[in-house]
Protein backbone atom coordinates (compact mmCIF):
# COMPACT_ATOMS: atom_id res chain seq x y z
CA UNK A 1 0.00 0.00 0.00
CA UNK A 2 1.67 3.21 -1.17
CA UNK A 3 0.40 5.32 1.69
CA UNK A 4 1.77 7.09 4.71
CA UNK A 5 -0.04 5.14 7.35
CA UNK A 6 0.60 3.60 10.75
CA UNK A 7 -2.03 1.29 12.22
CA UNK A 8 -4.99 1.88 9.88
CA UNK A 9 -7.27 1.88 12.93
CA UNK A 10 -5.61 5.12 14.00
CA UNK A 11 -5.76 6.76 10.58
CA UNK A 12 -8.55 9.20 11.37
CA UNK A 13 -7.45 9.95 14.92
CA UNK A 14 -3.88 10.69 13.86
CA UNK A 15 -5.04 12.92 11.04
CA UNK A 16 -7.28 14.86 13.42
CA UNK A 17 -4.45 15.24 15.91
CA UNK A 18 -2.39 16.64 13.08
CA UNK A 19 -5.10 19.12 12.19
CA UNK A 20 -5.32 20.22 15.81
CA UNK A 21 -1.53 20.54 16.16
CA UNK A 22 -1.34 22.59 12.99
CA UNK A 23 -3.95 25.03 14.25
CA UNK A 24 -3.18 25.73 17.89
CA UNK A 25 -5.44 28.32 19.41
CA UNK A 26 -7.81 28.32 16.48
CA UNK A 27 -9.20 24.80 16.76
CA UNK A 28 -10.18 22.48 19.54
CA UNK A 29 -10.04 18.70 19.17
CA UNK A 30 -12.28 16.33 21.12
CA UNK A 31 -10.94 12.83 20.44
CA UNK A 32 -13.94 10.96 21.86
CA UNK A 33 -16.17 12.26 19.07
CA UNK A 34 -13.66 12.87 16.25
CA UNK A 35 -14.61 16.46 16.78
CA UNK A 36 -12.74 19.44 15.38
CA UNK A 37 -14.33 22.73 16.40
CA UNK A 38 -13.51 26.41 16.42
CA UNK A 39 -12.04 27.32 19.81
CA UNK A 40 -14.38 30.30 19.94
CA UNK A 41 -17.51 28.26 19.23
CA UNK A 42 -20.30 28.12 20.17
CA UNK A 43 -21.16 31.76 19.97
CA UNK A 44 -24.48 32.83 21.52
CA UNK A 45 -25.03 35.35 18.76
CA UNK A 46 -24.42 33.03 15.89
CA UNK A 47 -26.00 29.92 14.44
CA UNK A 48 -23.51 27.06 14.79
CA UNK A 49 -22.73 25.26 11.52
CA UNK A 50 -21.78 21.62 11.85
CA UNK A 51 -21.04 18.91 9.33
CA UNK A 52 -20.34 15.22 9.69
CA UNK A 53 -19.63 12.65 6.95
CA UNK A 54 -17.12 9.88 6.59
CA UNK A 55 -13.41 10.61 6.61
CA UNK A 56 -11.29 10.30 3.47
CA UNK A 57 -12.74 13.42 1.83
CA UNK A 58 -10.21 15.90 3.17
CA UNK A 59 -10.16 18.88 3.21
CA UNK A 60 -13.90 18.16 3.60
CA UNK A 61 -14.89 18.73 6.29
CA UNK A 62 -12.49 18.92 9.22
CA UNK A 63 -10.22 21.31 7.35
CA UNK A 64 -13.15 23.55 6.50
CA UNK A 65 -13.68 24.50 10.11
CA UNK A 66 -12.97 28.18 10.64
CA UNK A 67 -14.39 31.66 10.67
CA UNK A 68 -17.06 32.06 8.00
CA UNK A 69 -17.12 28.32 7.37
CA UNK A 70 -17.94 25.44 9.71
CA UNK A 71 -17.98 25.75 13.47
CA UNK A 72 -17.35 22.05 13.82
CA UNK A 73 -16.96 18.80 11.96
CA UNK A 74 -17.32 15.28 13.40
CA UNK A 75 -16.23 12.74 10.80
CA UNK A 76 -16.69 9.00 11.07
CA UNK A 77 -14.12 6.48 9.98
CA UNK A 78 -12.92 6.36 6.40
CA UNK A 79 -16.03 6.38 4.17
CA UNK A 80 -18.28 5.60 7.14
CA UNK A 81 -20.85 8.07 8.41
CA UNK A 82 -20.13 9.19 11.97
CA UNK A 83 -21.85 7.16 14.67
CA UNK A 84 -24.97 8.79 16.01
CA UNK A 85 -23.17 9.56 19.26
CA UNK A 86 -20.73 11.90 17.56
CA UNK A 87 -23.59 13.87 16.07
CA UNK A 88 -25.44 14.00 19.35
CA UNK A 89 -22.43 15.13 21.38
CA UNK A 90 -21.34 17.59 18.72
CA UNK A 91 -24.79 19.17 18.57
CA UNK A 92 -24.77 19.54 22.34
CA UNK A 93 -21.28 21.05 22.44
CA UNK A 94 -22.12 23.49 19.66
CA UNK A 95 -25.52 24.38 21.03
CA UNK A 96 -26.36 28.07 20.64
CA UNK A 97 -29.54 30.00 21.44
CA UNK A 98 -29.61 30.88 17.75
CA UNK A 99 -29.57 27.21 16.86
CA UNK A 100 -27.36 24.56 15.31
CA UNK A 101 -27.48 23.77 11.61
CA UNK A 102 -26.46 20.20 10.85
CA UNK A 103 -25.26 19.82 7.27
CA UNK A 104 -25.59 16.31 5.88
CA UNK A 105 -24.40 14.91 2.59
CA UNK A 106 -27.26 12.79 1.34
CA UNK A 107 -26.27 9.20 2.10
CA UNK A 108 -28.25 6.58 3.97
CA UNK A 109 -25.79 6.23 6.83
CA UNK A 110 -25.24 9.96 7.30
CA UNK A 111 -28.92 10.72 7.26
CA UNK A 112 -29.75 8.07 9.80
CA UNK A 113 -26.96 9.18 12.14
CA UNK A 114 -27.98 12.82 11.87
CA UNK A 115 -31.69 12.18 12.21
CA UNK A 116 -31.15 10.14 15.34
CA UNK A 117 -28.44 12.41 16.75
CA UNK A 118 -30.58 15.48 16.19
CA UNK A 119 -33.60 13.89 17.87
CA UNK A 120 -31.53 13.02 20.89
CA UNK A 121 -29.98 16.48 21.09
CA UNK A 122 -33.42 18.07 20.81
CA UNK A 123 -34.57 15.93 23.70
CA UNK A 124 -31.74 17.62 25.64
CA UNK A 125 -32.99 21.06 24.66
CA UNK A 126 -30.71 21.77 21.70
CA UNK A 127 -32.29 23.78 18.90
CA UNK A 128 -31.17 21.96 15.76
CA UNK A 129 -32.12 21.68 12.11
CA UNK A 130 -30.81 19.49 9.30
CA UNK A 131 -29.94 20.65 5.81
CA UNK A 132 -29.21 17.97 3.24
CA UNK A 133 -26.83 18.50 0.34
CA UNK A 134 -27.47 16.51 -2.86
CA UNK A 135 -25.68 17.99 -5.84
CA UNK A 136 -24.60 14.86 -7.70
CA UNK A 137 -26.23 14.54 -11.12
CA UNK A 138 -24.76 11.06 -11.67
CA UNK A 139 -27.54 9.59 -9.55
CA UNK A 140 -31.04 9.76 -10.86
CA UNK A 141 -33.35 10.91 -8.15
CA UNK A 142 -36.08 8.30 -7.98
CA UNK A 143 -38.30 6.65 -5.45
CA UNK A 144 -36.14 3.53 -5.72
CA UNK A 145 -33.07 5.17 -4.25
CA UNK A 146 -32.15 7.37 -1.34
CA UNK A 147 -31.74 10.14 -3.92
CA UNK A 148 -28.83 12.12 -5.18
CA UNK A 149 -25.55 12.11 -3.32
CA UNK A 150 -23.94 15.09 -1.73
CA UNK A 151 -20.51 15.58 -3.30
CA UNK A 152 -18.09 18.48 -3.89
CA UNK A 153 -20.90 21.01 -4.17
CA UNK A 154 -21.17 20.83 -0.40
CA UNK A 155 -18.34 23.36 -0.33
CA UNK A 156 -20.63 26.06 -1.69
CA UNK A 157 -23.39 25.28 0.78
CA UNK A 158 -20.89 25.41 3.64
CA UNK A 159 -19.41 28.66 2.39
CA UNK A 160 -22.80 30.30 1.98
CA UNK A 161 -24.34 29.22 5.27
CA UNK A 162 -21.03 29.92 7.01
CA UNK A 163 -21.05 33.47 5.71
CA UNK A 164 -24.72 34.02 6.53
CA UNK A 165 -24.24 32.68 10.06
CA UNK A 166 -21.15 34.81 10.55
CA UNK A 167 -23.20 37.83 9.53
CA UNK A 168 -25.66 37.04 12.29
CA UNK A 169 -28.51 35.57 10.25
CA UNK A 170 -31.20 33.63 12.10
CA UNK A 171 -31.47 29.85 11.71
CA UNK A 172 -34.40 30.06 9.26
CA UNK A 173 -32.52 32.50 7.14
CA UNK A 174 -29.36 30.40 7.17
CA UNK A 175 -31.39 27.39 6.09
CA UNK A 176 -33.08 29.37 3.33
CA UNK A 177 -29.69 30.41 2.00
CA UNK A 178 -28.28 26.89 2.21
CA UNK A 179 -31.26 25.38 0.40
CA UNK A 180 -31.08 28.05 -2.21
CA UNK A 181 -27.43 27.33 -2.94
CA UNK A 182 -27.98 23.58 -2.92
CA UNK A 183 -30.83 23.99 -5.38
CA UNK A 184 -28.64 25.71 -7.97
CA UNK A 185 -25.58 23.49 -7.50
CA UNK A 186 -24.81 20.45 -9.65
CA UNK A 187 -21.79 18.17 -9.81
CA UNK A 188 -20.53 15.27 -11.92
CA UNK A 189 -17.37 13.28 -11.24
CA UNK A 190 -15.03 10.90 -13.03
CA UNK A 191 -12.35 8.58 -11.68
CA UNK A 192 -9.20 7.44 -13.45
CA UNK A 193 -8.05 5.11 -10.68
CA UNK A 194 -9.59 3.39 -7.67
CA UNK A 195 -8.58 4.56 -4.23
CA UNK A 196 -7.06 2.50 -1.45
CA UNK A 197 -8.78 2.68 1.95
CA UNK A 198 -6.05 2.26 4.57
CA UNK A 199 -7.85 -0.56 6.39
CA UNK A 200 -8.29 -2.49 3.16
CA UNK A 201 -4.76 -1.88 1.93
CA UNK A 202 -5.53 -2.44 -1.74
CA UNK A 203 -7.54 -0.56 -4.37
CA UNK A 204 -11.32 -0.87 -4.06
CA UNK A 205 -11.61 -2.04 -7.65
CA UNK A 206 -9.47 -2.70 -10.69
CA UNK A 207 -9.61 -0.37 -13.65
CA UNK A 208 -7.96 -1.15 -16.98
CA UNK A 209 -5.22 1.14 -18.30
CA UNK A 210 -7.60 2.60 -20.88
CA UNK A 211 -10.70 2.78 -18.68
CA UNK A 212 -12.34 5.32 -16.42
CA UNK A 213 -15.33 5.32 -14.12
CA UNK A 214 -17.87 7.92 -15.13
CA UNK A 215 -20.32 9.32 -12.63
CA UNK A 216 -18.52 8.50 -9.40
CA UNK A 217 -19.33 9.69 -5.92
CA UNK A 218 -16.78 10.45 -3.24
CA UNK A 219 -16.48 7.10 -1.50
CA UNK A 220 -14.30 5.28 -3.97
CA UNK A 221 -17.19 3.16 -5.18
CA UNK A 222 -17.55 2.49 -8.93
CA UNK A 223 -19.53 5.04 -10.90
CA UNK A 224 -22.53 4.92 -13.18
CA UNK A 225 -20.57 3.28 -15.95
CA UNK A 226 -17.15 2.27 -17.00
CA UNK A 227 -16.00 4.04 -20.14
CA UNK A 228 -13.01 4.15 -22.41
CA UNK A 229 -10.52 6.78 -21.33
CA UNK A 230 -10.66 9.95 -23.42
CA UNK A 231 -8.53 13.02 -23.61
CA UNK A 232 -9.03 15.75 -21.04
CA UNK A 233 -11.14 18.01 -23.24
CA UNK A 234 -13.53 15.23 -24.20
CA UNK A 235 -13.97 14.23 -20.57
CA UNK A 236 -14.77 17.82 -19.62
CA UNK A 237 -17.30 18.03 -22.44
CA UNK A 238 -19.09 14.96 -21.11
CA UNK A 239 -19.06 16.16 -17.51
CA UNK A 240 -20.25 19.59 -18.53
CA UNK A 241 -23.03 18.26 -20.71
CA UNK A 242 -24.34 16.20 -17.80
CA UNK A 243 -24.19 19.11 -15.39
CA UNK A 244 -25.43 21.92 -17.63
CA UNK A 245 -28.44 20.05 -18.95
CA UNK A 246 -29.50 18.88 -15.53
CA UNK A 247 -30.55 22.09 -13.79
CA UNK A 248 -30.40 23.32 -16.61
CA UNK A 249 -27.98 26.21 -16.76
CA UNK A 250 -28.93 28.60 -19.53
CA UNK A 251 -27.43 31.17 -21.86
CA UNK A 252 -27.03 34.36 -19.86
CA UNK A 253 -26.43 32.57 -16.55
CA UNK A 254 -23.55 33.57 -14.37
CA UNK A 255 -21.96 30.66 -12.49
CA UNK A 256 -19.28 29.59 -10.10
CA UNK A 257 -17.19 26.86 -11.72
CA UNK A 258 -15.33 24.36 -9.58
CA UNK A 259 -12.89 21.72 -10.74
CA UNK A 260 -12.35 19.54 -7.70
CA UNK A 261 -9.52 17.03 -7.54
CA UNK A 262 -10.36 13.65 -6.02
CA UNK A 263 -7.01 13.29 -4.26
CA UNK A 264 -4.47 11.73 -6.62
CA UNK A 265 -4.70 14.17 -9.51
CA UNK A 266 -2.23 17.05 -9.54
CA UNK A 267 -3.19 20.71 -9.76
CA UNK A 268 -1.72 21.04 -13.24
CA UNK A 269 -4.30 18.63 -14.63
CA UNK A 270 -7.12 20.34 -12.78
CA UNK A 271 -6.28 23.60 -14.51
CA UNK A 272 -6.27 21.83 -17.87
CA UNK A 273 -9.82 20.68 -17.12
CA UNK A 274 -10.79 24.12 -15.87
CA UNK A 275 -9.58 25.76 -19.08
CA UNK A 276 -11.81 23.61 -21.25
CA UNK A 277 -14.83 23.95 -19.01
CA UNK A 278 -14.44 27.73 -18.98
CA UNK A 279 -14.18 27.84 -22.77
CA UNK A 280 -17.15 25.56 -23.32
CA UNK A 281 -19.29 27.53 -20.90
CA UNK A 282 -18.41 30.66 -22.85
CA UNK A 283 -19.54 28.87 -26.03
CA UNK A 284 -22.85 28.24 -24.34
CA UNK A 285 -23.19 31.86 -23.32
CA UNK A 286 -22.66 31.08 -19.64
CA UNK A 287 -20.31 33.40 -17.74
CA UNK A 288 -17.93 32.15 -15.08
CA UNK A 289 -18.20 34.65 -12.23
CA UNK A 290 -16.13 32.76 -9.68
CA UNK A 291 -13.47 30.10 -10.18
CA UNK A 292 -12.47 27.24 -7.90
CA UNK A 293 -9.64 24.88 -8.84
CA UNK A 294 -8.24 22.70 -6.10
CA UNK A 295 -9.11 19.78 -3.89
CA UNK A 296 -12.30 20.40 -1.95
CA UNK A 297 -13.87 16.99 -1.49
CA UNK A 298 -11.71 13.97 -2.18
CA UNK A 299 -11.77 10.18 -2.16
CA UNK A 300 -8.45 9.42 -0.48
CA UNK A 301 -5.84 8.96 -3.23
CA UNK A 302 -8.22 8.48 -6.15
CA UNK A 303 -7.08 10.07 -9.40
CA UNK A 304 -10.04 11.89 -10.83
CA UNK A 305 -11.99 15.09 -10.71
CA UNK A 306 -15.45 16.51 -10.49
CA UNK A 307 -17.00 19.53 -12.11
CA UNK A 308 -19.46 21.68 -10.18
CA UNK A 309 -21.57 24.62 -11.30
CA UNK A 310 -23.45 27.01 -9.05
CA UNK A 311 -25.87 29.48 -10.59
CA UNK A 312 -25.01 32.83 -9.09
CA UNK A 313 -27.12 35.79 -8.18
CA UNK A 314 -26.05 38.80 -6.16
CA UNK A 315 -26.96 37.21 -2.87
CA UNK A 316 -25.07 33.96 -3.49
CA UNK A 317 -22.09 35.74 -4.99
CA UNK A 318 -21.89 38.01 -1.97
CA UNK A 319 -21.88 35.06 0.40
CA UNK A 320 -19.25 33.21 -1.62
CA UNK A 321 -17.08 36.33 -1.68
CA UNK A 322 -17.39 36.95 2.06
CA UNK A 323 -14.16 36.52 4.04
CA UNK A 324 -13.48 33.11 5.48
CA UNK A 325 -10.71 31.12 7.08
CA UNK A 326 -10.13 27.40 7.08
CA UNK A 327 -7.90 25.02 8.93
CA UNK A 328 -6.28 23.87 5.74
CA UNK A 329 -3.23 26.05 5.60
CA UNK A 330 -1.98 27.79 2.49
CA UNK A 331 0.13 30.64 3.84
Amino acid at each position, binding site marked *: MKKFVNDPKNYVAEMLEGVALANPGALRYVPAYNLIMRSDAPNDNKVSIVQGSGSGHEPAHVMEVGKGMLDAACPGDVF*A*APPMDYVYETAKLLSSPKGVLLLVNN*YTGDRMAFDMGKEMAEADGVRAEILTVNDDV*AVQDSTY*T*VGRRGVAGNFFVIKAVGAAAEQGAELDEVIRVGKKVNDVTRTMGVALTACTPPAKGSPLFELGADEMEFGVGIHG*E*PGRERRKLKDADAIVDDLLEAVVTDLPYDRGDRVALMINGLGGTPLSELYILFRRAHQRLADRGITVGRSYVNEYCTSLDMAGASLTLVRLDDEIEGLLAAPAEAAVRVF
Partner: protein
Amino acid sequence: MTMRQTEFVVRVIAETAIENEKYFGDLDSVVGDGDFGYSLARGFEKLLEGWDGLDRTDPGTFLKKCGIVITSRIGGTSGPIWGTGFLRAGAAAGDAAELTAVQVVAMLRAAIEGIKARGQSDVGDKTLLDALVPMTDALASGGLPAAAVAVREAADATAEMVAKRGRAAYTGERSRGSVDAGAMAVAVLVERISETWPKQGDAS
Protein backbone atom coordinates in the same frame (compact mmCIF):
# COMPACT_ATOMS: atom_id res chain seq x y z
CA MET B 1 -33.53 -18.94 24.99
CA THR B 2 -31.94 -18.27 28.35
CA MET B 3 -29.92 -15.25 29.37
CA ARG B 4 -26.77 -17.34 28.93
CA GLN B 5 -27.81 -18.46 25.49
CA THR B 6 -28.61 -14.88 24.52
CA GLU B 7 -25.17 -13.81 25.66
CA PHE B 8 -23.71 -16.70 23.74
CA VAL B 9 -25.47 -15.72 20.51
CA VAL B 10 -24.42 -12.09 20.77
CA ARG B 11 -20.87 -13.08 21.57
CA VAL B 12 -20.70 -15.39 18.55
CA ILE B 13 -22.04 -12.60 16.38
CA ALA B 14 -19.46 -10.17 17.73
CA GLU B 15 -16.50 -12.52 17.43
CA THR B 16 -17.51 -13.74 14.00
CA ALA B 17 -17.92 -10.18 12.74
CA ILE B 18 -14.46 -9.30 14.04
CA GLU B 19 -12.91 -12.40 12.47
CA ASN B 20 -14.54 -11.68 9.13
CA GLU B 21 -13.57 -8.02 8.95
CA LYS B 22 -11.57 -8.45 5.78
CA TYR B 23 -14.06 -10.76 4.05
CA PHE B 24 -17.01 -8.48 4.77
CA GLY B 25 -15.00 -5.46 3.68
CA ASP B 26 -14.05 -7.12 0.42
CA LEU B 27 -17.70 -7.97 -0.26
CA ASP B 28 -18.55 -4.28 0.25
CA SER B 29 -15.77 -3.28 -2.16
CA VAL B 30 -17.39 -4.72 -5.25
CA VAL B 31 -20.08 -2.10 -5.69
CA GLY B 32 -19.80 -0.39 -2.30
CA ASP B 33 -17.14 1.57 -0.48
CA GLY B 34 -15.40 -1.21 1.40
CA ASP B 35 -16.03 -0.03 4.94
CA PHE B 36 -18.65 -2.55 6.02
CA GLY B 37 -16.23 -5.07 7.55
CA TYR B 38 -14.30 -2.34 9.33
CA SER B 39 -17.43 -0.70 10.73
CA LEU B 40 -18.86 -3.96 12.08
CA ALA B 41 -15.54 -5.14 13.50
CA ARG B 42 -14.77 -1.88 15.29
CA GLY B 43 -18.30 -1.66 16.60
CA PHE B 44 -18.42 -5.17 17.96
CA GLU B 45 -14.97 -4.69 19.47
CA LYS B 46 -16.44 -1.79 21.41
CA LEU B 47 -19.33 -3.99 22.49
CA LEU B 48 -16.88 -6.62 23.79
CA GLU B 49 -14.81 -3.95 25.56
CA GLY B 50 -17.79 -3.08 27.75
CA TRP B 51 -19.07 -6.66 27.73
CA ASP B 52 -18.87 -7.41 31.43
CA GLY B 53 -20.66 -4.21 32.37
CA LEU B 54 -23.75 -4.82 30.21
CA ASP B 55 -27.01 -5.11 32.15
CA ARG B 56 -28.00 -8.79 32.25
CA THR B 57 -31.32 -8.48 34.09
CA ASP B 58 -33.04 -10.42 31.32
CA PRO B 59 -32.42 -11.19 27.60
CA GLY B 60 -34.54 -8.23 26.48
CA THR B 61 -32.64 -5.70 28.59
CA PHE B 62 -29.33 -7.20 27.52
CA LEU B 63 -30.21 -6.94 23.83
CA LYS B 64 -31.39 -3.37 24.22
CA LYS B 65 -28.12 -2.39 25.91
CA CYS B 66 -26.24 -4.04 23.05
CA GLY B 67 -28.39 -2.08 20.61
CA ILE B 68 -27.54 1.20 22.28
CA VAL B 69 -23.80 0.55 22.06
CA ILE B 70 -24.09 -0.52 18.44
CA THR B 71 -26.31 2.37 17.39
CA SER B 72 -24.20 4.96 19.07
CA ARG B 73 -20.71 3.68 18.34
CA ILE B 74 -20.83 2.01 14.91
CA GLY B 75 -20.67 4.39 11.99
CA GLY B 76 -21.79 4.02 8.40
CA THR B 77 -25.16 2.64 7.50
CA SER B 78 -24.56 -0.44 9.60
CA GLY B 79 -24.55 1.23 13.01
CA PRO B 80 -28.11 2.53 12.86
CA ILE B 81 -29.38 -0.54 10.97
CA TRP B 82 -27.87 -3.21 13.21
CA GLY B 83 -28.39 -1.18 16.34
CA THR B 84 -32.06 -0.75 15.51
CA GLY B 85 -32.33 -4.50 14.99
CA PHE B 86 -30.93 -5.24 18.44
CA LEU B 87 -33.03 -2.52 20.10
CA ARG B 88 -36.27 -3.75 18.57
CA ALA B 89 -35.47 -7.38 19.32
CA GLY B 90 -34.79 -6.46 22.93
CA ALA B 91 -38.00 -4.48 23.20
CA ALA B 92 -40.00 -7.38 21.75
CA ALA B 93 -38.49 -9.73 24.31
CA GLY B 94 -39.94 -7.69 27.14
CA ASP B 95 -38.80 -8.79 30.58
CA ALA B 96 -39.15 -12.53 30.09
CA ALA B 97 -36.38 -14.41 31.83
CA GLU B 98 -36.36 -17.09 29.17
CA LEU B 99 -37.67 -16.96 25.60
CA THR B 100 -39.59 -19.67 23.77
CA ALA B 101 -38.79 -20.48 20.14
CA VAL B 102 -41.94 -18.60 19.16
CA GLN B 103 -40.80 -15.59 21.12
CA VAL B 104 -37.39 -15.68 19.42
CA VAL B 105 -39.07 -15.61 16.01
CA ALA B 106 -41.29 -12.74 17.11
CA MET B 107 -38.22 -10.93 18.30
CA LEU B 108 -36.54 -11.36 14.91
CA ARG B 109 -39.67 -10.14 13.15
CA ALA B 110 -39.62 -7.06 15.34
CA ALA B 111 -35.99 -6.49 14.44
CA ILE B 112 -36.87 -6.82 10.75
CA GLU B 113 -39.69 -4.30 11.03
CA GLY B 114 -37.34 -1.91 12.80
CA ILE B 115 -34.70 -2.22 10.10
CA LYS B 116 -37.30 -1.70 7.36
CA ALA B 117 -38.51 1.46 9.05
CA ARG B 118 -35.04 2.80 9.78
CA GLY B 119 -33.70 1.99 6.30
CA GLN B 120 -36.92 2.74 4.41
CA SER B 121 -36.20 -0.55 2.75
CA ASP B 122 -37.89 -3.86 2.12
CA VAL B 123 -37.29 -7.38 0.90
CA GLY B 124 -36.04 -7.26 -2.69
CA ASP B 125 -33.94 -4.14 -2.27
CA LYS B 126 -30.76 -6.23 -2.04
CA THR B 127 -29.91 -5.59 1.58
CA LEU B 128 -29.39 -7.73 4.64
CA LEU B 129 -33.19 -7.98 4.82
CA ASP B 130 -33.01 -10.41 1.90
CA ALA B 131 -31.13 -12.82 4.17
CA LEU B 132 -32.77 -11.97 7.46
CA VAL B 133 -36.38 -12.48 6.35
CA PRO B 134 -35.99 -15.92 4.68
CA MET B 135 -33.79 -16.98 7.59
CA THR B 136 -36.48 -16.04 10.09
CA ASP B 137 -39.14 -17.85 8.07
CA ALA B 138 -37.00 -20.99 8.00
CA LEU B 139 -36.26 -20.72 11.70
CA ALA B 140 -39.99 -20.54 12.43
CA SER B 141 -40.76 -23.64 10.38
CA GLY B 142 -37.61 -25.78 10.69
CA GLY B 143 -35.48 -24.51 13.51
CA LEU B 144 -31.85 -23.40 13.50
CA PRO B 145 -30.41 -25.98 11.05
CA ALA B 146 -33.07 -25.05 8.49
CA ALA B 147 -32.41 -21.38 9.10
CA ALA B 148 -28.68 -21.89 8.42
CA VAL B 149 -29.37 -23.53 5.10
CA ALA B 150 -31.99 -21.00 4.06
CA VAL B 151 -29.88 -18.00 4.93
CA ARG B 152 -26.94 -19.13 2.78
CA GLU B 153 -29.25 -19.74 -0.20
CA ALA B 154 -30.91 -16.40 0.32
CA ALA B 155 -27.61 -14.55 0.61
CA ASP B 156 -26.31 -16.20 -2.54
CA ALA B 157 -29.52 -15.26 -4.33
CA THR B 158 -28.91 -11.56 -3.71
CA ALA B 159 -26.35 -11.77 -6.51
CA GLU B 160 -29.23 -11.78 -8.96
CA MET B 161 -30.77 -8.61 -7.58
CA VAL B 162 -30.35 -4.97 -8.51
CA ALA B 163 -29.73 -2.84 -5.43
CA LYS B 164 -32.40 -0.28 -4.62
CA ARG B 165 -31.11 0.81 -1.23
CA GLY B 166 -27.67 1.55 0.17
CA ARG B 167 -24.57 2.62 -1.64
CA ALA B 168 -24.74 -0.22 -4.15
CA ALA B 169 -27.94 1.34 -5.52
CA TYR B 170 -25.89 4.16 -7.07
CA THR B 171 -24.34 1.74 -9.50
CA GLY B 172 -27.77 0.63 -10.73
CA GLU B 173 -27.69 -2.42 -13.00
CA ARG B 174 -24.00 -2.90 -12.24
CA SER B 175 -24.89 -4.10 -8.76
CA ARG B 176 -26.25 -7.29 -10.33
CA GLY B 177 -23.80 -10.17 -10.27
CA SER B 178 -22.35 -9.76 -6.81
CA VAL B 179 -23.91 -10.69 -3.48
CA ASP B 180 -24.93 -8.05 -0.97
CA ALA B 181 -22.35 -7.66 1.76
CA GLY B 182 -24.90 -7.26 4.55
CA ALA B 183 -26.90 -10.30 3.47
CA MET B 184 -23.79 -12.46 3.26
CA ALA B 185 -22.69 -11.27 6.69
CA VAL B 186 -26.03 -12.41 8.11
CA ALA B 187 -25.52 -15.80 6.46
CA VAL B 188 -22.03 -16.21 7.92
CA LEU B 189 -23.20 -15.22 11.39
CA VAL B 190 -26.23 -17.50 11.39
CA GLU B 191 -24.19 -20.43 10.11
CA ARG B 192 -21.68 -19.91 12.86
CA ILE B 193 -24.41 -19.74 15.49
CA SER B 194 -25.90 -22.91 14.10
CA GLU B 195 -22.52 -24.68 14.15
CA THR B 196 -21.72 -23.71 17.71
CA TRP B 197 -25.18 -23.88 19.18
CA PRO B 198 -25.29 -27.65 19.94
CA LYS B 199 -22.15 -27.38 22.07
CA GLN B 200 -23.66 -24.41 23.84
CA GLY B 201 -26.86 -26.38 24.32
CA ASP B 202 -24.86 -29.21 25.85
CA ALA B 203 -22.93 -26.92 28.11
CA SER B 204 -25.92 -25.06 29.46
